[in-house]
């Protein structure tokens, strides 16, 4: 949505609510829509690694003990930030079996914010999430079985 449309929406909302002042154009991303109180580690198989700005995404299929598959979309940080800590677009490929530790979406949909991922070679890669320390880790919360 453009800033102009944003202002129109805000102005309409203010008129409807009788409030004063528009919601203007500030900057920066927020990760407040992700659970800061616990993490979930997904044991799954990568279907896609989207290497783009403003953020990269990891798509993972997770199979439970009954064999049911749930697909997760996991947001990462900017690829510029990831490049600065050593990431490359070729680091993860479809078919890779990974352990992805994420802060889950609070709205309950199958998605989250990737804090780190363990790749098939056993190496752990962090994504450089700003203020990562504000996410409480719960390593015992594991979803999926690796086959």
């Amino acid at each position, binding site marked *: *949505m453009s800033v102009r449309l*944003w202002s129109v929406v805000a102005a309409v909302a203010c008129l409807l609510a009788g409030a004063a002042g528009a919601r203007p154009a500030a900057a*920066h991303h927020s990760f*407040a829509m992700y659970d800061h109180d616990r993490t979930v580690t997904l044991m799954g198989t990568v279907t896609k690694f989207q290497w783009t700005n403003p*953020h990269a995404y990891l798509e993972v299929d997770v199979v439970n003990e009954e064999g049911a598959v749930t697909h997760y*979309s996991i*947001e990462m940080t900017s690829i510029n930030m990831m490049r600065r800590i050593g990431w490359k677009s070729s680091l993860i490929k479809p078919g890779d079996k990974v352990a992805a530790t994420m802060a889950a979406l609070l709205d309950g949909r199958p998605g989250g914010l990737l804090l780190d991922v363990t790749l098939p070679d056993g190496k752990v890669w962090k994504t450089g999430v700003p203020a990562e320390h504000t996410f409480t880790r719960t390593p015992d919360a594991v979803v999926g079985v690796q086959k």
Partner: protein
Amino acid sequence: MIRVALTRVSLATILLAGTALPALAKDALDITGRWQRYGIGANAANMAEGEKKFTPPPRPEPPLKPEYLEKWKAFEKEKKEAAAAGTPFATTWNDCIGSGMPEMMAAAFPMEILQTDGQITIIQEAFMEIRRIYLDQPQVSLDDIELGYYGHSVGHWEDGELHAETIGIKPDVQVNDAPHSETMKIEETFHMVSDDIMWVDITLVDPDYLTKPWSWSYAFQKMPDYQMQEYVCEGNREYTDEDGYQRIRLPE
């Protein structure tokens, strides 16, 4: 063979010409290069006690006039409550729009400064935002420009400091959601505080909205070996919903 040799010479000449620094004005400093914010994030956490003197204090609240301050504080409260509820308000970044001036100088990503004849160009890696400061020229009239994200900047060097003035910022391009008028001026002073740390003082002057000028500072450290990366928004899944909240699309 001769043609190839001539091409090489020509290319070399062009490359040499392209890398030659322009003659800097008297009192000017060489601030060309890549810079990163100093004193924030991981670099602040690893900072020795003695280095903290180059860390500017946090930006103060905007000294808004009472009629605007009340609304601003109410909105700040609303923002915090929305974020605490896991439903943050959207920002321009969610829609892949940069910060504009002066917030782009917060430089969440590396920043490049280029000094050429009569102009200083500042490029932010995030969103590839660009601003230009025209040197030793009078400021234009607001009637002669269109309001925008970066406005019109002029500047000059004086005693080793770069003084810049910017006008023409759209009222909905804001710092921390603080309202401003179309006549707001942004005054900046750039100077070096050590061999590799640059300090930028920023002051917003807007008597229509502020009880006094609003000032804060940023420090930047040189990144001598860094090469700027491109930043193109091509896979954005975030968006602003009809109520102004930040949302994310998941694949079907």
